[in-house]
């Protein structure tokens, strides 16, 4: 198994010296992944429909501070040697697909093949409107088309595409990514639609445990979710073994007594070192290879380093 954590895109840890310090330490102590979230502009008024908190309120600062995801990932590629750099997740409709494909290929080549693209369809309509994307309600179709465009550009000798949102022909797209056929595309999301997308288009499934609409907040629920993924694979003639499995615990794992809303059970990846180690064991047994944790403390570099150190001592070294 491989461990990783998310880096904040705001505050004192999202500064160049801090990023260098944290990632250099993380590489030394054995983390395999670092991830970056995707926001471009945050509107001042948002409908509280954030899928990953029980209240729908997103964990944003009131001032909307955020660094741009792919730019930060490229910077991280420059300052790391071995860690993989994961978009967690890239909101696919946010960016023109030709621009995004080129940006990702650039990061892949410059990093010597260390980028993984977690993909999502997005949830914040106000952000879509501010950026000027295709219509929010078509975000599923847009995501599917953009992913098809990425693959065409990344793999075809003479890329050609005719779609609802973009068309091109008679172009060359070089250099191809270092990773072949292309950087892995991990589909985020916990709904049946997301699983279907993972099976049809993805190289991996990368859900978050904390979606109250489709909770994967106990090991048992994750195992159920995984078996429905495998059923879908059969329907779509996709070998489920081909899919990378990652699990994103984007909450404070050091909480001792968190219970799930749905059934009052211990929330996965909380409740002490032994409990977490057991959860990792169960998921790993089921095929999960990559475990992402919320280790960074956005208000303090020192606390972030300490948090990473604690995780290494209590959990990472056990595996």
């Amino acid at each position, binding site marked *: 198994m491989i461990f990783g954590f998310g880096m904040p895109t705001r505050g004192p840890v999202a500064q160049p010296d801090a990023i260098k310090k944290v990632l250099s330490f993380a590489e030394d102590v054995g983390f395999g992944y670092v991830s970056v979230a995707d926001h471009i502009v945050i509107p001042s008024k948002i409908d509280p429909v954030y899928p990953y908190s029980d209240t729908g309120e997103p964990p944003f600062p009131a001032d909307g501070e955020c660094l*741009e995801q792919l*730019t930060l990932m490229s910077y991280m590629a420059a300052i790391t040697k071995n860690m993989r750099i994961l978009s967690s997740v890239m909101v696919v409709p946010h960016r023109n697909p030709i621009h995004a494909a080129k940006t990702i290929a650039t990061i892949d080549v410059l990093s010597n093949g260390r980028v993984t693209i977690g993909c999502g369809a997005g949830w914040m309509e106000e952000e879509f409107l501010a950026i000027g994307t295709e219509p929010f309600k078509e975000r599923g179709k847009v995501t599917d088309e953009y992913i098809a465009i990425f693959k065409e550009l990344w793999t075809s000798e003479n890329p050609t595409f005719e779609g609802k949102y973009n068309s091109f022909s008679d172009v060359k797209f070089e250099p191809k990514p270092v990773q072949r056929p292309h950087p892995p595309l991990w589909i985020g999301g916990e709904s049946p639609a997301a699983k279907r997308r993972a099976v049809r288009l993805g190289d991996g499934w990368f859900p978050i445990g904390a979606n109250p609409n489709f909770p994967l907040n106990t090991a048992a629920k994750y195992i159920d979710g995984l078996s429905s993924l495998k059923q879908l694979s059969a329907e779509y003639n996709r070998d489920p073994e081909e899919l990378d499995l990652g699990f994103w615990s984007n909450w404070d794992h050091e909480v001792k007594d968190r219970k799930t809303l749905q059934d009052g059970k211990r929330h996965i990846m909380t409740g002490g070192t032994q409990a977490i180690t057991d959860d990792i064991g169960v998921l790993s047994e089921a095929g999960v290879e990559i475990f992402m944790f919320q280790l960074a403390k956005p208000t303090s570099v020192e606390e972030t380093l300490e948090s990473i150190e604690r995780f290494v001592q209590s959990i990472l070294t056990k595996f």
Partner: protein
Amino acid sequence: MKFGFQVMLRGVASSGDGLASIARSGEKFGFDIIAPNDHLIVPKGIDSTYPYTDDGIWPGASVVECHDQLTSMAFIAGHTDNIRILASVMVVPYREPVLTAKIIATADLLSKGRIILGCGVGWMSEEMEAIGTEPFEERGKVTDEYIKVFKELWTAKKPRYEGDYVKFSEILFKPLPIQKPHPPVWIGGESKAALRRVARLGDGWFPAANNPKFTISTPNDLATRLDLLKTVCEEEDRNFDELDIGFFFTGGVSSKERRSADGDRQLLTGQPSDIAADINKFNDAGLGTLICIFQRPELGETLEQMEWFGKEVIPLVRGI
């Protein structure tokens, strides 16, 4: 005088090691600026006229490799400490403006305030079509509007914009760029329309030498064009003295003296003292920043050329 070198994001600069090596070496050899170019996708058949050759054909067409410019600038920022990073030039219509403003602010923060935004309107309609930009014929208006959008997002307390191409309100934009009020915006292009854009929207002018319609081969050529810029500034009520003046010298820079057909030594070739004298004449004509090309098919040769210029020529100009 400031000195920089252009990087074509292909060939020797295509690998991470190659690009890092070029960037770090440039910093080590005393250059002030590294200046990567901008292409997103290379069409196979290009009918558009390339403005920078006599025959209108783009020499890059057969090469086809390109990395994304802004992504590469962030990568360069991670590998360097002091050298400034100049988009040379960013084709403004290529990228969505709100995203681009965010990318540049991010790069400015990560580089600790080293970004210079060279801006161009573009020339290749086929590339714009493939990307799906606003119409090629409107690229001037698009560029003007996008630059205004950048500045609004970078400087307004409560950014809002309503234009022909872009509309937003009630959004939060943070962090702001490190540089205040924002990274310098250098307008590329040599036409009068470009000069007007400099006066209206730019912090600097950044022409290239080899536009056959407005060739700038000599210090005199530059001085003449600067006179026109001064006039345009007066018309636009803009203080000419506020403007940075850059220049992309596209000719060969070489320690081997070259002679032109009429027997004169070609500028920027020959002994370091001769080259320094050439540069001083450009400086006298009003030049502030000189960008040259040292990139060769081999990395070793590229670095050698850069080292020679950085160690033998630049100190002479600076009187070190």
